[in-house]
């Protein structure tokens, strides 16, 4: 019989660039202060509930950092939190929606900037749930005993492409406006090891499940294509770049009409985890769910409460309102804050949930808080 090791999260880090930016500061950095855009902005902000967020942009809207720099700073924070160095890592998995460059992969760029020694890399691509795909990869390799220690970082810097210049010259509808006032910059990272932290609490990864329903759904969140379906000749790579820009193909879009379906599909996936017994609704101490707007918080919370009537809002953690929606990085940025602020006690469980609108993907993970069993024994 094959015996696997266990995987523990032993270090947590985040990086949020610049000072917090309030709702008035958004327009100053991103532009779009005409009357129509301003009205759409205030409407979106009113429903998503985000009060402040961070941008790697100065007060004039000019970029201050690279996405890979955000990633390295979050990783460094996680490594410092664990008390190890980049040279202690044997694997690095990264997640981002858009790296700084087209080629090579984001993980290669982050590794190059981070330093350390030889290591296995994975650049998970996608949107919000790519962070969980990256986590799953490192956790799997640690469990197999292939690597003693790895790190996962999810990093997003969408603000560069949310500035007014991307929206000039074509008539932007709701699909193009929606994400502009939702997304912001940041990075979150975790360290994964086969032994718990020698002297303090760790989070054991009990399971990770990810599923795509792309077979049954059209594209929802997208950039680089015209319309809502791909066809030969209809991607940004097929046409002159100036034409792609003029057609608004570089704008990040969301088919907002599909989002109710997304929420319902996510709830159905959660119900399935309950049905097959992976989620024990009698023992769910903390829920950290990534969502883009408080509207979905209420939908998701109501759905969970149907299965867990005793679920109270105290067990629900989100920092969307103060840290913004940082896409794939959000789940780690929330986990880091929940960890750092001392919410977790030994024996408690933590459910992570990440719905991804890209083309309907859902990722869940269950963690259990564990105390150090042998403070004197584990290697540092």
């Amino acid at each position, binding site marked *: 019989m094959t015996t696997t*090791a266990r995987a523990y999260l032993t270090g947590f880090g985040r990086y949020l660039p610049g000072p917090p930016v309030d709702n008035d500061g958004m327009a100053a950095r991103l532009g779009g202060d005409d009357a129509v855009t301003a009205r759409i902005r205030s409407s979106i902000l009113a429903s998503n509930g985000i009060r402040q967020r961070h941008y790697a942009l100065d007060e004039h809207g000019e970029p201050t950092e690279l996405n890979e720099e955000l990633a390295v700073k979050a990783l460094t924070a996680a490594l410092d939190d664990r008390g190890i160095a980049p040279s202690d890592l044997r694997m690095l998995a990264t997640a981002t929606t858009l790296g700084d460059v087209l080629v090579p992969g984001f993980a290669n760029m982050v590794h190059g900037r981070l330093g350390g020694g030889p290591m296995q890399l994975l650049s998970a691509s996608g949107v919000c749930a790519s962070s969980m795909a990256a986590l799953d990869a490192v956790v799997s390799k640690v469990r*197999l005993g292939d690597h003693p220690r790895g790190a996962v970082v999810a990093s997003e810097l969408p603000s560069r492409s949310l500035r007014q210049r991307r929206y000039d010259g074509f008539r932007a509808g709701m699909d193009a406006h929606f994400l502009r006032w939702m997304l912001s910059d940041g990075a979150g990272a975790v360290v994964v090891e086969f032994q718990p932290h020698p002297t303090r609490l760790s989070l054991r990864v009990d399971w990770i499940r990810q599923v795509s329903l792309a077979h049954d759904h059209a594209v929802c969140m997208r950039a680089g294509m015209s319309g809502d379906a791909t066809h030969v000749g209809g991607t940004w790579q097929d046409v002159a770049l100036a034409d792609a820009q003029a057609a608004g193909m570089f704008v990040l879009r969301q088919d907002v009409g599909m989002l109710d379906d997304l929420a319902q599909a996510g709830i159905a996936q959660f119900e399935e985890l309950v049905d097959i017994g992976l989620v024990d609704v009698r023992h769910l101490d903390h829920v950290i769910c990534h969502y883009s707007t408080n509207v979905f918080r209420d939908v998701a919370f109501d759905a969970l409460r149907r299965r867990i009537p005793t679920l109270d809002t105290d067990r629900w953690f989100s920092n969307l309102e103060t840290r913004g929606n940082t896409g794939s990085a959000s789940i780690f940025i929330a986990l880091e804050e929940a960890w750092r602020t001392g919410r977790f006690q030994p024996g408690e469980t933590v459910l992570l949930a990440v719905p991804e609108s890209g083309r309907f993907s859902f990722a869940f993970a269950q963690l259990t808080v564990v105390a150090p069993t042998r403070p004197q*024994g584990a290697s540092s």
Partner: protein
Amino acid sequence: MTSATSTDSATDTAAGGASLLERLGDVWLELEDHLAKVPVLQRLDDGTVTLEDYLRLLFNLRQQVIDGSLWIARAASNFDIDHFELRAAAIKHAEEEHRDHFLLEADYVALGGSRAELRAGRKNVGSEALSGYLFTYASRPNPAGLLGAMFIIEGLGARRAAQWAARFQEVLGLADNQVHFMTYHQEADGAHTGDMEAILTSGLIDDATADEIVRCAQVVARLYALQLEELDR
């Protein structure tokens, strides 16, 4: 296998072989007494062993594992044509073992240890004594007594290494990939032990050689346990 038959003459090969195995069995029991007093194995037994203990054990074993196939190869080169079977067996054995340290290194690295530090390590005082004795013995003409050394070392691999591996996995939560070296030896050394028992009972061994084998086994058993007692010293 009775004590009466064990004193029979060397020409009674079946009885002589059985007698030799019985005498080696007594040496094995002495070894087990020593192993029961080795601190790291006591901690393994009572479940207080640490990851650091396991890393130190691998670190200390590696320096001696490197020498294993070398002294066997040296012994092979010192068997004359009258001991052709022993020479053939030793050459085969050396060939099968000369990459074993790579397995150990892979485990060490999979546990978070540094391959460079492992390779820069030196033998502990027990390993120094063991290697020194074995290389000296292997330099003699027709060093058939080394079958006693193999009985002990292969026996540890076949009978104990996999138990140790399973216990380390149980206590420390390790994956199979982190205990390859020890689990591999259950199979490989089990085969070697079978080959050797065939030689020990084949009639190739006369009384004087049997005495040498038993003596060598006694020395190696003591030095091997010493190697486990003297971690890092």
